[in-house]
Structures are given as structure tokens and as C-alpha cells.
């Protein structure tokens, strides 16, 4: 295969639409006669609606309906799927299960009127006792299988004798760590436009997975899946929260059916806190011990995280402990508790991000106790094969990541002791941490079509979250078909297209990329076969092996060639298409597959104010093949800055009495802004991985966040001598 396109840092395909404002996000799709739906959400955390008075709202001019459980149509089916789908509240009963739960929807001819009508709805609720505190439910903590990496994993795993290993070490750290509730907060609030035509439903949804939305709505409304079409051409960020069809999606479709008009429904920023998931809080315990030379004698990682009363999500923080460092004794344990909250869900690097904070902080503490360089400690227990099961890694260049990162960053200049280095009155600290994220791969399909003009149209119903799907998949197809990049159009975001997996888990490039590769290869082979049997083709009678695709032509080793345009013209002038399918195979059983990296962070801490500024971060990552250095690099830049947010800012703070998130706008839920960010430098070490998936890709979206918060926390310790084990590291904690 020629690789003239893959690996090139092409600018993004959707760039023009996005810089001109022409890109239409789901809410903005022009649907004739659409009316506006605005949700009414619960002010209490638990109870029952005794009375809901919608009369004032209904009297307002322009109001078409105010729909609550009292008058909502009964869904014929359960709007719930297996797998990572979430249980929703679609106005089907009077129960309030968490604060901010949708309990009614006002529909009006203008947005202003719908908002106002929603504000006029009066709710009389019978309040039940609630809790949103993990501590209150610890006695009821229970294990649950974990859906991660496309498969169910055991909550507990253990090998060796951890208790003995902990005693055997020359030094040991046993500490508790905590990460807070966080909320995804993509910049685009969730939005759905639902439109019925008879019993056919079209939905424009801010989604990471149109196929799940389609199946869920079909099931809920009791119609065949083929009657539902879900379209998502542009998504304004997602990070996991748009991976499930939440309550408002079903409610939008329900309202549209009930008022017999298309309904546009967007969540307010405030409504993003609770009803559409978030990263659950974690309480983790890590015990690590090592010999004098840094060889780990034991690792124990335990975590408890909350889920809702009615659904299950496990923040799998302790999974990576199974695979990251070599140790004869490793134990990991996950527990969940039920709280009166909206169901948490996967948020960028679920498990790995929160878990790496604990594990990598503990490693730093252990290094400190051993008076060892934290990097040397990690090298001393470098896992040459997966410690969980002894499988070889499909590829692993972590050692090189450490070395290159340390060199680039200037790790040797790290202050030996806390508070020993200052710059303009601020303590300087440096820290590092390892990054690891599984190389996920899920079944995917794609279609490749050669058009009579010799250009190709390739499609798969995946989503471009801003990641670059529009661009990189055209690059893959172009190489397989021997076409210049400009001659390949890749389209996505429509459930009428070949099925793609959820655009999450850093697996889109691997999964859809492989499907595109397979489909394009199938199309090329079909075109070759067509030429060979075509007596008018210059390639007639040749063996397929003698023919390659190049510059829009099929070219034989002899030099003879046939163009796609000619070939199709002679074949009747109709487009020729092929479908491709990929799915994980046996290789997954034989190898352990992960992306790896190393973070290095420098912080400046004000000694009197406790403010932390991340002045510099270097991250070196090895994650298989890089399809497009420009789009991939941006994923890492974004991931690393999420690390700053996680370390210093992000926190969905609950008012425990009211059971609601108090920090429910971007004024109080802090994400990093431009001026908060210093120098960020991500680098890749490219790997050839023949086992991981046909595209050779291990994923880029999440790895950059894994370990990033720990590197910053470790740098803060190096600067101040203060070990903060509870994120975020706010100034008050440092004084």
C-alpha cells in the first residue's frame, strides 16, 4: 500500500464550514414548522410529584402544550438498550429520582415563550429523604461487573499475595485519594430536533452514536428501527456525555408526536448538571511497596464510586493497576454505591484519568520515601509483558516515551527537595506520571463508492466530535484507492449509513478507520476484477497481483493502465460500491493492547496565596500509527489541558442538603481558559503495530488526559512539599 496520504498533516476537511459559521449543529438544522421545547426540571432530589400545575403556562400566548407525566403519551416500549445506554426519565411516572431530573416540557412557538411557560409550571412534590454523599452509603457498597473496552470485566482481580508483598518492601505507601464529581461540559449543550412523519421519525441529535439513539427511540416508541433516522453532522464537543440518548432525546420525540410538530429542544447549561451524566466522585485507596532498588513488591488499588439508584455506571479507576507495572502481587477492587443522583457516565478517559491520579500519586510518594527519582522507580518496575495475564503487548514504547520526555522536559533539572527552587517569588516544582489507555476496537462498517467522475465517496455512520474523522478517513480511503486526497469525500453522521460504533473510547480511528480501509480495499479489488474481465481494458487478462492503484488509475507492473473514469464508463457508467466490515479478532486474545505515554509537568506555586500555575507540560506518547499528525496532536493538547482542569479546577460541588449540584454553570464550574494555560508540548513516537487493528491505530482522544493530573499534583508536591490527595488542588488546600 502506498501511504501518500495517511500520516500527512492535512488541514481539517470541515474547517471551512466551521470558520465561516456554516456548520450546522443539531439544533440549527432548518426543519420547517419547528416549535421549541423547554424542559422543566426537578428542584428536589427525591420524591413524588403530587401535583403539577401547568395551567398558567398553558394560558400563555403561543404555548402549544405543557407535557408532564399527567398527560404524556405512554411509551409502548421501554426506551432502554443493553450496554452503555442509560436509563431515562421520559415523563412516564410521578417519581423524582435526582435533582434536575426532567419532569415536564413546555412547547411553544418561540423559544422565549417556551422558556417562560416552563418557568410558570408549579410543582408540588412529596419530598423523600435523599443522599448524595458516598459516605452515607459505604455500608451498602457492592461490586458490579465493569463495561470497559467493549467487554465486561471483573470488578476484582488479584494475583500473588499482596499482603505479604506490602510487608516485604523496603518502603511502602498506603494512602487514600479522592477525585470529585466532574461534568463534561462540552461547549455545545445537548440538543435534539425531532420530527415525525406518520410513524417515521427523523432526529437531529447532538450525539456520539446515532445508531444507539435510533435503536432506543424505535424501542421506546414501538416502531421498527428502519423507521427512525438519526443525523449528527457536527457536534460541539461531547467527551462522553453525548454517548447515550438521555431523557431529553426521548422527551423531544415524545413532545413532537404529541403536538404533531417538529420540536427543537436544547438543554440550558444549568440542565447539563445531573440529567446527562458526569464523572462520578471516586474514593480510592492505593497501597504500593517496593524494594530498595525500586522493584515493586505489591500494588493494591481499591476504589468506590457512586452510581444512581436506577442504573449502573462504574468508574473503573483500578483497572490500569492490573496492567501498568510489573509486580508479583497485584490486587484491584471496584465497589459502587447508590446515591440519589443522575446516573454518572463515561467522561473522557473514564477510570484511567481518575485512577491514574491515585496510582501515579502513590508511585510518586513511594519514590519520595525511597529517595529515588520517580522516573527511575517506574523504570525499575517496567512491565515487559502484561502483568495481569503475561500476554505480550502488541506494541509498547513506554521506555522511549520516558526517555524522550525526560530529555525534552529537562527532567534532570528537577528540584531534589521541595521548596528548594524559586522563580520570581514562586516555588518551582516538577512532576511526572505515566499515561496508559487501552487500545479499543469495536465492530464497524463502511461503504466505499467509486463515482463515474473518478472520485470516491466513502461513508460510515460515525461522528466527528472535532477529532478529525471527516479528514482522516478520507486519507485512509485515498491511499487504498490510489486517489489524491481531494478526490475522496468522506461522509458520516447518519444512521442510514453503514453502522459504526460509539465515537468514544478512543476507538473511532481504529474501528472506523479499519472499516474504511477494508471497504476501500474491497472496492479497489472489485475495480481490478472488473478491469481484468473487461476485454476493452488494457488490463484485460492480467492477474490481480500485477495491478496496483495509483493517481486515479489501475496500473500494471508492465506499465499498462486503466483509469477509473474509463473503467466505470465501459461498465455502464454507474457508481461501483463495496462495503467493508471489521471486528476484533483473535489477536485481542493473544496480545495486551494499550497506548502509553509519559507526562512531565512544571508548576509555579505562590507560597503565600497557594495559587498554582502549570507553566510547562511535555507529554510523549506512543499510540500506534498517527493518521494525521495535526488532528492527533490537537487531541493530545486538549487532553493535557483537561489534565490541568482536572488537577486544578473542575469540580461539580453538591449541596448535600438539597442534593443538587451548586456549581451548575461555567461561572462556578471552572474549566481552564486561555490565560490559565502555559506551554503544552505533546510529542508522538510512532509505532508499527501489526496486531492491534487493520489501521494500526491505538487511539489518541483519551491518552493525553491519563496521568496528566497526577503529573501536576506530583509537581505541586515537588514545589511545596504538600501532598494533595484530593482533587482539585485549589489554593486553600496548599496553605
Amino acid at each position, binding site marked *: 500500500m502506498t501511504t501518500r496520504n495517511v500520516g500527512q498533516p492535512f488541514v481539517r476537511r470541515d474547517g471551512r464550514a466551521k470558520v465561516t459559521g456554516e456548520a450546522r449543529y443539531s439544533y440549527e438544522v432548518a426543519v420547517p414548522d419547528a416549535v421549541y421545547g423547554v424542559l422543566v426540571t426537578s428542584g428536589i432530589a427525591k420524591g413524588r410529584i403530587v401535583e403539577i400545575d401547568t395551567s398558567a403556562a398553558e394560558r400563555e400566548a403561543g404555548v402549544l402544550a405543557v407535557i408532564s407525566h399527567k398527560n404524556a403519551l405512554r411509551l409502548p416500549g421501554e426506551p432502554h438498550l443493553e450496554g452503555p445506554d442509560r436509563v431515562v426519565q421520559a415523563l412516564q411516572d410521578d417519581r423524582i429520582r435526582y435533582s434536575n431530573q426532567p419532569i415536564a416540557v413546555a412547547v411553544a412557538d418561540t423559544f*422565549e415563550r417556551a422558556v417562560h411557560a416552563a*418557568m410558570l409550571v408549579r410543582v408540588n412534590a412529596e419530598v423523600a429523604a435523599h443522599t448524595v454523599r458516598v459516605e452515607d452509603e459505604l455500608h451498602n457498597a457492592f461490586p458490579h461487573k465493569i463495561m470497559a473496552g467493549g467487554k465486561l470485566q471483573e470488578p476484582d482481580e488479584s494475583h500473588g499475595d499482596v499482603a505479604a508483598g506490602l510487608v516485604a518492601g523496603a518502603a511502602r505507601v498506603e494512602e487514600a485519594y479522592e477525585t470529585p464529581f466532574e461534568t463534561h461540559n462540552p461547549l455545545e449543550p445537548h440538543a435534539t430536533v425531532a420530527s415525525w412523519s406518520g410513524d417515521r421519525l427523523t432526529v437531529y441529535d447532538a450525539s456520539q452514536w446515532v445508531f444507539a439513539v435510533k435503536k432506543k427511540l424505535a424501542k421506546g416508541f414501538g416502531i421498527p428501527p428502519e423507521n427512525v433516522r438519526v443525523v449528527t453532522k457536527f457536534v460541539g464537543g461531547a467527551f462522553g456525555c453525548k454517548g447515550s440518548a438521555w431523557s431529553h432525546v426521548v422527551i423531544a420525540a415524545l413532545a413532537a408526536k404529541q403536538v404533531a410538530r417538529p420540536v427543537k429542544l436544547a438543554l440550558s447549561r444549568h440542565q447539563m448538571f445531573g440529567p446527562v451524566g458526569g464523572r462520578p466522585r471516586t474514593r480510592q485507596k492505593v497501597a504500593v511497596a517496593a524494594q530498595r532498588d525500586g522493584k515493586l513488591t505489591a500494588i493494591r488499588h481499591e476504589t468506590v464510586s457512586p452510581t444512581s439508584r436506577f442504573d449502573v455506571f462504574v468508574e473503573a479507576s483500578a483497572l490500569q493497576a492490573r496492567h501498568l507495572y510489573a509486580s508479583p502481587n497485584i490486587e484491584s477492587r471496584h465497589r459502587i454505591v447508590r446515591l440519589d443522583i443522575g446516573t454518572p457516565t463515561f467522561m473522557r478517559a473514564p477510570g484511567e484519568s481518575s485512577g491514574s491520579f491515585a496510582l501515579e500519586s502513590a508511585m510518586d510518594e513511594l519514590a519520595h520515601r525511597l529517595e529515588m527519582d520517580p522516573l527511575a522507580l517506574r523504570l525499575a518496575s517496567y512491565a515487559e509483558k502484561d502483568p495481569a495475564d503475561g500476554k505480550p503487548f502488541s506494541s509498547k514504547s513506554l521506555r522511549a516515551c520516558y526517555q524522550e520526555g525526560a530529555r525534552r522536559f529537562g527532567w534532570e533539572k528537577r528540584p531534589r527537595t521541595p521548596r528548594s527552587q524559586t522563580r520570581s517569588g514562586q516555588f518551582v516544582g516538577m512532576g511526572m506520571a505515566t499515561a496508559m489507555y487501552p487500545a479499543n476496537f469495536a465492530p464497524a462498517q463502511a461503504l466505499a463508492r467509486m463515482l463515474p467522475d473518478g472520485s470516491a465517496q466513502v461513508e460510515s455512520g460515525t461522528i466527528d466530535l472535532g477529532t478529525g474523522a471527516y479528514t482522516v478517513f478520507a486519507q485512509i480511503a485515498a491511499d487504498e484507492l490510489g486517489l489524491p486526497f481531494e478526490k475522496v469525500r468522506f461522509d458520516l453522521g447518519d444512521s442510514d449509513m453503514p453502522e459504526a460504533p460509539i465515537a468514544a473510547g478512543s476507538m473511532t480511528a481504529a474501528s472506523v478507520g479499519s472499516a474504511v480501509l477494508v471497504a476501500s480495499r474491497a472496492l479497489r479489488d472489485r475495480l481490478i476484477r472488473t478491469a481484468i474481465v473487461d476485454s476493452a481494458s488494457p488490463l484485460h487478462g492480467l492477474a490481480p497481483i500485477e495491478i496496483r492503484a495509483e493517481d486515479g488509475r489501475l496500473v500494471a507492473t508492465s506499465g499498462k493502465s486503466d483509469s477509473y473514469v474509463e473503467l466505470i464508463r465501459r461498465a455502464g457508467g454507474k457508481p461501483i460500491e463495496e462495503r467493508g466490515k471489521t471486528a476484533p479478532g483473535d489477536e485481542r486474545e493473544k496480545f495486551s493492547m494499550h497506548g502509553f505515554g509519559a507526562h512531565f509537568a512544571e508548576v509555579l506555586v505562590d507560597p503565600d496565596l497557594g*495559587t498554582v500555575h502549570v507553566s510547562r507540560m511535555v507529554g510523549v506518547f506512543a499510540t500506534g500509527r498517527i493518521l494525521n499528525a495535526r488532528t492527533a496532536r490537537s487531541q493530545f493538547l486538549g487532553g493535557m489541558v483537561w489534565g490541568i482542569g482536572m488537577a486544578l*479546577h473542575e469540580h461539580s460541588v453538591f449541596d448535600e442538603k438539597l442534593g443538587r449540584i451548586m456549581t451548575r454553570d461555567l461561572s*462556578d464550574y471552572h474549566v*481552564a*481558559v486561555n490565560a490559565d494555560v502555559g506551554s503544552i508540548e505533546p510529542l508522538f513516537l510512532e509505532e508499527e503495530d501489526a496486531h492491534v487493528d487493520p489501521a494500526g491505530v491505538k487511539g489518541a482522544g483519551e491518552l493525553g488526559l491519563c496521568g496528566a493530573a497526577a503529573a501536576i499534583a506530583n509537581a505541586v508536591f515537588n514545589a511545596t512539599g504538600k501532598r494533595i490527595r484530593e482533587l482539585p488542588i485549589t*489554593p*486553600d488546600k496548599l*496553605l
Partner: protein
Amino acid sequence: MIPSSFDYHAPATLAEAVALLGKYPEDAKVLSGGQSLLPLLKLRLGQAGHLIDIGKIPGLEYIKEEGGMLRIGGRTRESALERSEIVQKRYPILVDTAKVIADPIVRNLATVGGNLAHGDPGNDHPATMLALGAQVVAMGKSGERVIPIDKFFLGLFRTALQPDEILTEIRIPAPVEGSGGAYVKLERKVGDYATAASAAYVVIGTQGFVERAGIGLTNLGPTPIKATAAEKYLIGKKPETAALAEAARIAAQATEPSADRRGAVEYKREMARVLTGRALKKAVERAGGK
């Protein structure tokens, strides 16, 4: 999010605006830059039947020195203040203050008058104005009156402005030889409201002793705080490290912070001390003290 319905008025003169306020005494709000008011109305934390937009009234946006005073029109935008040459040259404390209010886009609309008239102890200008000993000019139906800034903030979101009064001007004494001021703010992240902030202003006499001192504190009590005891302490002292530290300590004692997400009471008091120390140090530096 959308406010509930209201009637919109865009008077062309101040007199008209005052008359409108008089007409709807219970139910009207002045719309200046709107950067605090609109979010409040949108989130339905506040309501008004009538909004009196003073944006169309000419002559409320200016920055000029006149009669030994810096006069700032009530509707002067923060961005104008930041960019004003005279402010940059002679009133760096005002630049310190304006620059840390929200973000540059908000500052294109937010006004200095609005920042004061809102009566929010978390706003930044109040402390600075307290330190500078400013005056506020209010226009009502019975005419114009001048309110000393230390009589202006009465309570949480409560000021000395009458319901029919509009803040039309802020007057700040022009700097004298040996004077300097600074505003230092601690925020959890860029653009946030202050966890705590301190404004300090000093006049150092030719003999090197503090002749006048002003200290104002942000978000450390139900109203912006004037640290009077600390100001008094400094008078007649040489502005040296120990004296400044002691003044900062006294200033911190004047605070009444409440515990919230930005931190505990003791933490905020401590921050008041640190920030006041830094503000005083910078003010003294700017005064040419060292």
C-alpha cells in the same frame, strides 16, 4: 434562559430616565452595561417590569481630569477605562482593577457605574474606590447629589442610591506627589470573582512618612470593606516592611468573610492579610517609596 417580560425604555435624556424611574418606583431597573443585570434577569434571580436603558443618553461616557478630580462618567465602559491614557499614566490602580474584571469582551459592555451601583461585594471597583476616597454623583428627581464612597455601600446589593437615582459620575481625587495605589486580586482561575482582593492607596510625604492611606477589600464581607483601622495605623509611619505587614494584619481583622466554595473564613482572612500586604507594597513602590 430568558428574562420574564418587561417594558423597555430608552430615554434620550437623563431627566427622562429619572422621570421613568420615578414613575415605576417599585418595578424599574436601570440598564447600564447589563453585564451583571442580564445574567440576573435571565436566571430569574431578579425581575423588573421596566428596564430603563441609559445607553442612549449622551454624555455619560467620559474620563477626564477636572478641578483636581478624575471624573469618570457613570456609563464609562471598563474597556475604555483600561485603555485610557490618562488612567494608564496617572491611575494605575484603576487599570489593575479594570483588567481583572470578568473578561475583555464583558468589559467592552460592563460599566464602572454599574460595577458600583450593583452593590455586589464581589465586584472589584468598590474596594478601589474606597481606597481612593472617591465620590459618587447621583442624579434624581430632586437633582444631583454627591455621595462619599464610604457612605455608599449599605448592605448586600444595597447602596445609598434612591430608587429614582442614577449614578452619573465617579470622582477620584487626582494623584498628588508621593501617592500610589494598587489592586491585587486572588481568583481561583482567570476571570473569576475574587476569592479576596485588596486595594491600597498611600500618600507618602516628603519626609518619607505616610500622610494618607486607603485600604479597600473585596468579597470579604456583606459589603465592600474600608479597612479604617489599618489606614489609621499607617498614618505617620514610615512605609517599611514591618509597618506594612502590621497594617495588613489589622486590615484582615476588619473582614467578615463567609465560608463558601472559595474557602473557609480563616483562609479568606489570611488571604486578606497577604493581599493587603502585597497591595500596600506595590502602592508604596508606585508612590516612589522604594
